[in-house]
């Protein structure tokens, strides 16, 4: 791993936090609405992961790619990375979060993936990048970082 991460957890992984995230998303969506939920994700992307956002604003997407890679591997997700021209595609073939929920018989909230979609949008704000999320299957999605400005 060449790019240092601001947060790089080690030790045991407590996957059950995905259940709590799912429950929290369901609650906030129903009680406070999608706009409120998005606002929390925006704060998470831009304030908690300020270091990633600062790098993106400087034109460097590598901490974000390392972040995705490190934590997807840590949770034993399946992924591949494709780089071509001004695009980096992080292709998630088996998302550890939705897989964990479904394996436990927990209904995945319809807005569960909003965490990924909104955080990627928030990370792209004020940066030379467009960061999009495409849901490609029950446990699969593609995150694309595309440089749109020099």
């Amino acid at each position, binding site marked *: 791993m060449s790019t240092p991460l601001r947060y790089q957890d080690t030790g045991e992984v407590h996957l059950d936090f995905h259940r709590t995230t799912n429950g929290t998303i369901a609650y906030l969506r129903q009680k406070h609405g999608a706009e409120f939920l998005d606002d929390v994700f925006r704060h998470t992307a831009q304030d908690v992961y300020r270091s990633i956002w600062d790098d993106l604003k400087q034109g460097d997407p590598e901490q974000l790619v390392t972040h995705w890679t490190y934590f*997807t591997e*840590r949770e034993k997700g399946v992924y591949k990375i494709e780089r071509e021209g001004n695009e980096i595609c992080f292709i998630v073939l088996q998302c550890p979060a939705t897989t964990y929920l479904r394996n436990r018989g927990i209904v995945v909230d319809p807005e569960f993936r909003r965490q990924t979609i909104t955080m990627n949008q928030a990370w792209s704000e004020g940066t030379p990048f467009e960061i999009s999320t495409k849901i490609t299957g029950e446990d699969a999605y593609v995150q694309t970082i595309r440089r749109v400005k020099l």
Partner: protein
Amino acid sequence: MIPSDHFVRFYNEVFKSLDRKGRVHLVDYWHELGRLQVTELGDRFKTGGLEAAYEYWQRIFLEENCEGEIKLNGDVLELRMHKCPSLSKAMDNDSGAHGLYCDHCMAWVEPVMAHAGLHAVFDMESRTEPHCVMRVTRDKKKAEEFAKHAKLPSTPYIPASLPPR
């Protein structure tokens, strides 16, 4: 995907956003956490008593990389946290920890214990240092005695006990 390792920092942002909207919204969310945890643990603790709670927190201590001790002595389960990984992460955070971060713990523990017929006393000791002591017992009088000696007892559902935002 928010990594499970980072749920705590997301949670911390949820607390901040709800508290900004109004303290009542934060407290309502704590009630929801309690409801969810009662669903998950309530009957297990009711049936298995202190032993079930002991087993649960032994696993949590391991999975969440807690630094501390957990002891079951007769009628008292004592969790002594030397370094809480949850508050530690909320503090090791470019966004900063919410001022009532620790209170969410008792906010879900209290309804679970009420459901199980147990009594918990949670001494936060400090809201800005990641150490605390929680004692759980079947004996209400014993719990009241523990509460008398707590340095900073957590009573999240008593509004006057919470510092203003």
